[in-house]
């Protein structure tokens, strides 16, 4: 029991992934600034933002709307993100836990933050929040199918095992999946899905701040908003870690491997940041078409190639 609590609260759960995620969010903002030839925020900026929202700002509840759901949604989002962090990071670090089938649990856990944002937005009773929620819903419907297909491809390549630790162990024994044709295609599809899961440009229409003023988070202020920030930091670490453990043989922590693990995560975040800085926001219809037609097609090709062992 103590061990599970430690896993959940300290390492690799809440505390650890929040600190790393905060660092990655600074990294993302700094790279963005450098791309635009700016100086960028200081290293502790994510911490300042979080503490300011948590300690200083007043929390305002919506008058028309469900206040309990509005307050609980960020808690659920944080919980889902932390659980996903525990289930993904433990096998990625090579700590022997988990059970057969934890991939399926992770699929559900990764959806909890988005679903909670939708619930919170609908509980806020604000029309713009509703628009944001409906867009987020459509986004989930579009990226989920290619995401599942890529997972299927990984499972086929690993010889029909559905547990994270076995997939990571298989790659460490036989080379990373990204070294094959299907692996490269799967990587492209997975990166696009992650971009949409994180709701970053070009798929940031749930919160498009220019048109619907931050959309799903429009009514949040103070402590609940700080929890949403924390959940977002954690997701910014967990999703790259997911890519690394599915396709790039995990994050081993022995000796020199630590350096490689850090570089892998930074590389994925760098790719996400560059994509987000060089693209405009697309319309929700375009995003759905992009995922339903093109990404599904690519993912199917990857699955077929994986069946033939390429």
């Amino acid at each position, binding site marked *: 029991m103590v061990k599970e609590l430690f896993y959940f609260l300290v390492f690799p759960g809440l505390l650890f992934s929040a600190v790393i995620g905060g660092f990655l969010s600074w990294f993302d903002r700094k790279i963005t600034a450098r791309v635009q030839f*700016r100086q960028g925020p200081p290293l502790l*900026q994510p911490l300042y933002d979080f503490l300011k929202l948590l300690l200083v*700002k007043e929390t305002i509840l919506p008058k028309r709307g469900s206040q309990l759901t509005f307050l609980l949604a960020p808690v659920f989002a944080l919980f889902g993100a932390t659980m996903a962090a525990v289930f993904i990071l433990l096998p990625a670090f090579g700590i022997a836990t988990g059970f057969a089938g934890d991939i399926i649990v992770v699929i559900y856990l990764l959806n909890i933050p988005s679903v909670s944002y939708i619930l919170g937005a609908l509980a806020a009773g604000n029309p713009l929040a509703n628009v944001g929620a409906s867009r987020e819903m459509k986004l989930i419907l579009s990226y989920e199918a290619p995401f599942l297909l890529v997972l299927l491809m990984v499972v086929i390549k690993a010889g029909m095992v559905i547990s994270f630790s076995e997939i990571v162990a298989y790659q460490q024994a036989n080379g990373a999946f990204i070294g094959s044709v299907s692996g490269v295609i799967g990587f492209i599809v997975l990166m696009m899905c992650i971009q949409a899961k994180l709701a970053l440009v070009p798929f940031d229409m749930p919160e498009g701040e220019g048109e619907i003023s*931050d959309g799903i988070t429009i009514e949040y202020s103070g402590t609940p908003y700080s929890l949403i920030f924390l959940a977002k930091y954690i997701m910014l670490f967990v999703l790259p870690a997911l890519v690394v453990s599915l396709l790039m043989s995990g994050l081993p922590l022995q000796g020199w491997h630590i350096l490689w693990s850090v570089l892998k995560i930074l590389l994925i975040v760098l790719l996400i940041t560059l994509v987000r800085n060089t693209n405009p926001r697309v319309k929700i219809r375009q995003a759905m078409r992009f995922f339903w037609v093109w990404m599904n097609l690519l993912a199917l090709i990857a699955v077929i190639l994986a069946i033939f062992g390429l």
Partner: protein
Amino acid sequence: MGLKEKVFKKSLWLFHLSAGSCNNCDIEILDCLTPRFDVERFGMKLVGSVRHADVILVTGIVTKKTKKRVLEIYKQAPKPVLVVAFGSCSCTGGIFAEGYNFEGPLDKVIPVDAYIPGCPPKPEAILAGIVKLLNK
């Protein structure tokens, strides 16, 4: 300086409210986000919703029509919130001071923490105003 005050000053999020401006001040605000002036160095960023705002930048004169809305926006912001009168218009009325629909300078309507005069203020003046706000 306590922790609360420190984190507040290190992460001021700006909300931009155009009461009745000629749009020049509004463009000048965007100038501050460009590479040359870059206020993100100080942890500032523009936010879209007033619920996330720490600083409300009010540009333009408060007119008969917008007075109600300015008050409304001020009430909607989570406290503590700072208000900056941005440009000569909101400081004193500027060239519209004689206008038929002028409702008095901004500090007659809501409490103001800093004034940045100019028509429109230069980005250097805006940065100077921000530094004064941070040292307050």
